[in-house]
């Protein structure tokens, strides 16, 4: 009896995803403790975030995918409207108009679009599944470009690129012709100088900084230089938990959020980094398998987009900290401190679990 109840409750939980996620969260807790100079409040606060995020994951794991299809269009429309509102009445913080004040709190609609855009595109392709033509790809491209354009205007290049990536993954998985992909690639390369011309100074600076961080060691290059030093000085086995000098002497900025990987890397070294990569691969690999076996086009495209977006976050964050990508405000999924990011990621994992466990129901 108890066993049956247990089975019923856990029917929609994917154990591999859950275990990998829990391990990553644990490593995150360990690192947050060190990065916050052993702040217990910060630790308990993150624990609370984890509880909420796991709750969200559980809920979404139990929602059948076709319910999501129903909210795709409204969510997308809402998101675009909010972005328009931001452009018209948004608050300016640090020179960028990203936030919208709604009654009691400020929201950042561009965050919503990270989910709404792939959801919308997956829904759109699923709807025209039988008759996919070039026209549909053009419409999809338009659906993608409108929110991206609005986010670029804020300006928030990092988020715009992440939304583009999520959308592009859907287009790619939906079977966009290789010739077009190649053509777009060439066109993008050709547009680089043009893009450079329209960039803001600080954006250019970030890219120049990436090429040669020593050019401006106390300015925009500082974070990259210091985080690279932290990673490099960690060595094979790291300096040991709570022993990172770069971390504990304040050389690393944002030690529990965007730059948490620098802390982890300094204290646990190459072995720690490889363990982290393996755990991320476990999540991504499981996501790929679930997606490959997904019952319909919507779940395949959406699941694939979620998995690849998860990968993108991890890659961009670690690449930024180790100095091969420019500094963009992307947290390390499941590891960085912060409720929003944790909830969003777990929501995605919940949807993957739902796809994995609801296929029979749909097929029948």
């Amino acid at each position, binding site marked *: 009896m108890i066993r049956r109840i247990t089975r019923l409750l856990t029917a929609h939980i994917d154990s591999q995803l859950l275990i990998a996620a829990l391990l990553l969260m644990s490593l995150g807790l360990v690192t947050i403790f060190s990065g916050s100079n052993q702040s217990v409040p910060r630790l308990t606060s993150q624990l609370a975030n984890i509880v909420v995020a796991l709750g969200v994951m559980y809920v979404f794991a139990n929602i059948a995918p076709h319910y999501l299809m129903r909210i795709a269009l409204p969510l997308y429309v809402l998101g675009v409207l909010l972005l328009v509102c931001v452009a018209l009445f948004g608050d300016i913080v640090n020179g960028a108009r990203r936030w919208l004040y709604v009654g009691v709190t400020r929201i950042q609609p561009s965050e919503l679009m990270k989910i709404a855009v792939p959801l919308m595109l997956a829904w759109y392709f699923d709807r025209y599944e039988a008759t996919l033509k070039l026209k549909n790809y053009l419409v999809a491209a338009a659906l993608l470009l409108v929110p991206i354009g609005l986010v670029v205007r804020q300006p928030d290049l990092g988020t715009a690129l992440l939304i583009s990536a999520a959308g592009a993954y859907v287009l790619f998985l939906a079977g966009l012709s290789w010739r077009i992909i190649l053509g777009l690639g060439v066109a993008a390369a050709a547009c680089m100088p043009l893009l450079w011309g329209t960039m803001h100074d600080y954006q250019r600076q970030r890219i120049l900084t990436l090429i040669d961080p020593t050019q401006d060691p106390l300015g925009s290059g500082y974070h990259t230089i210091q985080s690279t030093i932290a990673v*490099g000085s960690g060595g094979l086995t790291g300096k040991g938990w709570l022993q990172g000098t770069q971390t504990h002497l304040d050389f690393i900025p944002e030690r529990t959020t965007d730059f948490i990987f620098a802390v982890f890397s300094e204290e646990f070294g190459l072995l720690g980094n*490889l363990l982290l990569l393996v755990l991320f691969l476990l999540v*991504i690999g499981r996501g790929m398998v679930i997606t490959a076996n997904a019952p319909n086009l919507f779940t395949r495209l959406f699941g*694939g987009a979620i998995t690849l977006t998860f990968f993108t976050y991890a890659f961009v964050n*670690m690449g930024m900290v180790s100095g091969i990508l420019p500094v963009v405000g992307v947290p390390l999924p499941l590891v960085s401190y912060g409720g929003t990011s944790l909830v969003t990621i777990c929501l995605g994992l919940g949807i993957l679990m739902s796809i994995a466990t609801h296929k029979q129901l749909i097929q029948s």
Partner: protein
Amino acid sequence: MPELTINRGVEIRNSRLEIHHFRVRLAVASAFVLCMFALLAARFVYLQVIQHEYYSTLAEANRISIVPIPPSRGIIVDRNGVLLANNYAAYTLEITPRKVADVEALVDELATVVEITARDRRRFRKLIDESKSFESLPIRTRLSDEEIARFAAHRYRFPDVEMNARLFRRYPQAELFSHVVGHIGRINPHELEQLETKGIDANYRGTDYIGKVGVEQSYETHLHGTTGVEEVEVDAAGRAVRTLSRAAPVSGNNLVLNLDAKLQEVVHRAFGEFRGALVAIDPTTGGVVAFVSKPGFDPNLFVDGIDPLNWKELNESIDRPMVNRALAGTYPPGSTFKPFMALAALSYGKRRPEQAISDPGGYRFGGHFFRDDKVGGHGMVDMYKSIVVSCDTYYYMLANDLGIDNISTFVKQFGFGSRSGIDITGESAGILPSQEWKMKRFKQKWYAGETISVGIGQGYNTYTPLQLAQAIAAIANDGVMFRPHIVDYVEDVVTRARTVIEPHPLHTIPLKPEHLKVVKDALVGVNKEGTGARAFAGAPYVSAGKTGTAQVIAIKQGEKYIESRVAERFRDHALFIAYAPADKPKLAVAVLVENAGFGARAAAPIARKVFDYWLLGKQPTPLKADDLKAGRD
């Protein structure tokens, strides 16, 4: 419904094809993911294994800050251990101007908590103008206990103001040793460059000061010491977290001088209001016992950077207190040159001691009449008398007989015209004229008439008081010349070992004892029955000396020099060279009193006081300038 079945079959096939296409795409994406993760892994291996050492070094360099601990500068004492320069610790308030947006506003606000005088502000502004980038500069030095407490209470208001304990230099004798002990001052860019070329700039990290003048400058390497280092762990904001290691600084070595502070004071008081210089040398060692240039200045003004107003005052004063007259001032030797002329005459066989000339009150040469001091002349004059009464005619004739090149070759041996090599810098060489010198200097040949005035120490030749002292010391010491030196020995502050600045015999002048005796006897005669007799009346020791008077302006032919008619600054300089006791000299002295008239009247009494102190331990009552002028000595 067969059609439907067929359709459904197509749909299923399509769907299968679609799934197949999708899985290919997924495989491509997976491969992309793996590639990117491999790239990351490669980057980690590169950073953490291949470049690990490099980044470890950077992390350590980040973490560890090397803080220099400046050593305590060696102290300077006189021969009896009287402090001439020492250090004391005091608190300063410092600002790094380049880190502060509005320095003036900050200083104004600071002035509400501690007193900041107009002088402090001027000095600080000057420091800013002279400073290197990112240097912390003192706005206030030597805080009182009350000010320290007040600032500490308001510290939160001044994150950009640092309170530091620093060592300060103090010159307790103030003006008495301003030229010879000298002073330190803030290191300027030029000095920094010199330190860099010498490769010792590392030892000056944390040191703001360097010797500028006098012994402070010339013994800089001994005095400075070795800078210590402290390895401190710092955070990103540069705050020290803890000390990792410490190498203590080694204090600079102490200097013990030959100078006698009391004698120095005796001399200062003896000069009264007059300007001038005095050098007293132990003829048997070259040790300088007194070294005075008047007027002096308070070297303490320079210690934490002199403010522009004081600087201007010192620099533009017509008394020129910054000039070290004893070392760099050059004056015609006047009649003090005569004993050397007499020795030359004897050496070259141009005169015998008893050979007398008739002095008609002057000497006519080439249509020009060279006047003697005494109207109507001294009558028959032999060598002894020529020195004792200071007969000019005797030396006009002698100069003509010797010729300029013989004179210059001979007196050169006494150090005239060349730097003595004393252990402080800034020395003048003076001018020892010769045919070659004139050709080089003026591109003109020497005229025989020009030799005549050289004979009585006028004309082109000018020497420093130090050179005169060295020359009379050489006579006192029977021709054995020493390099004069201020410092007796350097004392290692750790081992207490003494490095004696060895008496350095430069050379021995080949003089026949009988020639020397003639001149020395005559010099004794000067103080017994000649021009120096009044000054040395009643002295319980036998001394030897020679007076001199050096013209500042040329007196036209046929015109007589009347002191009261000449403006003070154009009056003659009084000179006196002497040594005592005559048989076994312990001290040789050269005195120059600017614009004081006859040497016998103004300069000789000062020498008397020096000998009285040195030989008898007498500390005379201060001499008033009026006494000198009235010639009541």
